[in-house]
């Protein structure tokens, strides 16, 4: 038997790891990967709550699929932006992309 809290704690840890990655990585692709980790953590929570609390309908699963969709769209556009920025600025280090500063 696995209690619900185990899943929630694993998801929280995964989310924190992703948060750390988003804040600390220099490479934009790595930041995007960390965002994917955070989205996955969210999905674990959705499915866990579905299974343990709201097993009588499928809302949790459906929302998890929508999160998947958003993650895919985000990755597609984000990576396109990174490729485009790389082409014009020759850099994918997030700190150096400061055209809009000042």
């Amino acid at each position: 038997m696995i209690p619900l809290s185990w899943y929630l704690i694993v998801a929280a840890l995964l989310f924190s790891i992703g948060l750390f990655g988003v804040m600390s990585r220099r490479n934009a692709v790595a930041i995007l990967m960390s965002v994917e980790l955070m989205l996955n953590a969210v999905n674990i929570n959705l499915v866990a709550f579905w299974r343990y609390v709201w097993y009588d309908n499928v809302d949790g699963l459906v929302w998890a699929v929508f999160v998947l969709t958003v993650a895919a769209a985000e990755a597609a556009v984000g990576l396109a932006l990174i490729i485009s920025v790389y082409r014009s600025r020759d850099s994918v280090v997030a700190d150096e992309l400061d055209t809009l500063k000042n």
Partner: protein
Amino acid sequence: MSQEWQFIAIFIVLAPIFPAAPVILNHLLGPRKPNPIKQQTYECGIETVGDSWVQFKVQYYIYALVFVIFDIEAVFLFPIAAAFDQLTLFAIVEIVIFVVLLSMGLAYAWGRGALEWI
């Protein structure tokens, strides 16, 4: 965990053995006389210039992009197809709208010439 996935779990655990056995056997049986020439990258005979890095065309990325969109479409459409008996005609109209909207993405990529090779 439901009973039926137990089989898949066992399969995933055991499956690596089957490719590993011949590769390990190969590692044990084969001779081992490495030398720098032998380990060179197999390209044109002369030593490789630079990294294997090549400036790849954005084309490859576009193909993968369109593929991602249709992959997500599959995630939506497969359960719908499995539930086809319970659907109303209204639902069919929604599906048509959904598919047509995604096809517009394909049409845009096509019209823009993003699907042309080279």
